């Protein structure tokens, strides 16, 4: 490489870096300006996990919309699936002296030190969607979120009623070891105890993805016991949607030959229900905004807040799908 080319490359790289730096600075200034404009409002800081799914996006939008509707100033931060980002964000919230801190923890453990710092600063903490593991319970005020076990129970109850209490079930589990996978499995197993003639003959992880859901379902159907399967329980909609393709490929009718119940209630699941391919989905609502700001209102008014606020789990099936689909935001 000649010296001139080298110089050009260095210059271009340097200017690119400056450009990136400049953008960041501008964004920071923007945030500051917003802050001073609304100095009198109650300042609620929220640290979100990321934007990994439609569910999460709807969750974020619900919180933002509710904050605006109630006239709170929301300081929002995206952790991009990293705990260290989230801890940094929480510390910056403390430094900014916000009134309430809310966050959806990326993982369950490792929050003690930062939560203690927040407590020392006298800022109340609200957890949404996911819980944390701490030794002293007073490190947060309340945990708002769905109950994964209850979702499993509801799925089981629906299946029991829809099949007259008789079904041979294949189960697609979520990522091994994750809280929703463990709890949804547990809840379903509890739920089918009421129906002695429902039994699970196959249970494997589809890792919460469409591709794996389809691949695992193919294996279920081709196994020697595969022909007995009359129902499928999937820990999320995406796996069920993948499995539907496998069932069709095997020459069976999803939703008819094999009844399918899953969890999450994303829009694609409603579309599948309208098409008659999915039978039921249990909602674990991402629209936590109202519940979150109810809690914030109560905290600011000095009223007591329950330690655990369980958000509603709704059950949708083909009879309601068509009327609800239009109102689905995610």
């Amino acid at each position, binding site marked *: 490489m000649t010296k001139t080319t080298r110089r050009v490359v260095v210059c271009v790289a340097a200017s690119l870096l400056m450009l990136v730096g400049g953008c960041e600075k501008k964004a920071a200034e923007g945030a500051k300006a917003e802050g001073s404009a609304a100095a009198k409002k109650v300042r609620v800081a929220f640290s979100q996990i990321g*934007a*990994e*799914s*439609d569910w*999460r*996006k709807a969750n974020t939008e619900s919180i933002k919309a509710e904050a605006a509707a109630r006239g709170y100033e929301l300081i929002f931060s995206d952790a991009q699936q990293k705990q260290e980002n989230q801890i940094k964000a929480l510390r910056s919230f403390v430094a900014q002296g916000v009134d309430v801190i809310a966050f959806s923890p990326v993982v369950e453990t490792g929050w003690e030190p930062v939560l203690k710092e927040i407590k020392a600063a006298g800022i109340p903490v609200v957890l949404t969607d996911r819980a944390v593991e701490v030794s002293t319970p007073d490190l947060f005020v309340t945990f708002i979120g769905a109950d994964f076990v209850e979702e499993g129970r509801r799925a089981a109850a629906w299946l029991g009623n829809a099949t007259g209490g008789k079904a041979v079930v294949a189960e697609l*589990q979520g990522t*091994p*070891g994750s809280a929703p996978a463990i709890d949804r499995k547990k809840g379903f197993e509890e739920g089918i105890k009421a129906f002695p003639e429902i039994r699970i003959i*196959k*249970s*494997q*992880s589809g*890792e*919460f*993805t*469409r*591709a794996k859901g*389809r*691949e*695992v379902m*193919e*294996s*279920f159907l*081709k*196994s*020697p016991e595969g022909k007995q399967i009359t129902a499928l329980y999937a820990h999320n909609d*995406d796996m069920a*949607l*993948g499995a539907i*393709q496998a069932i069709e*490929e095997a*020459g069976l009718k999803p939703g008819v030959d094999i009844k399918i119940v899953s969890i999450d209630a994303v829009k*694609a699941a409603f579309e599948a229900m309208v098409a008659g391919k999915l039978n039921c989905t249990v909602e674990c609502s991402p629209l936590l905004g109202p519940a979150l700001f109810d809690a914030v209102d109560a905290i600011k008014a000095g009223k007591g807040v329950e330690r655990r606020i369980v958000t509603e789990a709704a059950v949708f099936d083909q009879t309601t799908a068509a009327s609800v689909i239009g109102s689905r935001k995610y």
Partner: protein
Amino acid sequence: MNQSGLPWRRGMRSLVWPVAALALLLAFNAATMPGFFAIEARDGRVYGVLVDILNHGSRTALVALGMTLVIATGGVDLSVGAVAAMAGAVTATLLVQAQVPWPVAIAGAVALGMCCGVWNGVCVSVFRLQPIVATLVLMVAGRGVAQLITGGSIITFESGPIAAIGNGSFLGLPVPVTMMVVAAVALQVLVRRTALGLCVQCVGDNATAARLAGVPDRAVMLFVYGVCGVLAATAGIIECSYIKAADANNAGSLLELDAILAVVIGGTSLTGGRFSFAGTIIGAMLMQTMTKTLYMHDVSAEIAPAPKALVVILVCLLHAPRVREWVSGLWRPRGGSA
């Protein structure tokens, strides 16, 4: 190095263990799982467990073919999973949101894969970054880009020519299998009938010596990383087509490790030099057969990685010269050892 026999003959010998492991695994399934080998024709295509293994294995195999070339030059490409995710995202976005004809969507995705590959090649050969570092950049950044392309949501599409790539059949076999065979044959012809294979091997054995001997090492690097990028993009398109959706967050996750493993099981050394496409394909199929076996035998997801790891370790150990010497010593007559 043992100089007896032609290069391909030596290559054949390193295939023995992966082939043996695959045969053992299939025999185990034949004995314990009735219907494992059953293949029937449905709607003009073959249907059965073995077909599934070929079908799913072919995605990893396609990526692993490119990875074989990269590893043969002494490099590694960690970005293939992210490139696959980006390719899927581009295909679905172009198809659904930009409403372009399907060949354009595919061309766009493949072009993106090639650009990513060539960029890796430039980083490695021109900037002299270590391959693991150079491709790590794209591995980390690529998935973010894929998310950006899809706007963070899963983009779905209905049947059509694109869906046929992952679900259709060609001459009775699933399309991905055909694509794998075509890619393997084309690459094999390209590297064995031209000097390219030798150049790749020279660069991998000793890059400096190769350069001094007049091997165009930069061009070779650009070529192998480019091919790897294109094949990764192809795998991404297949996965996207297979589920009729672009799942930017999950598509091609851990694909890079699967591909590297397939190459290593197939007998290509990570230090570069000698390489074998046949070994790589057998490696990919061995792993897919293992996965399928665990599914079919109801091995719970929590412990499933353990038996898989065991097979991988065994096959890799059998590639180690020391272990191999010891094993082959068992069959030699006493006193006549080397």
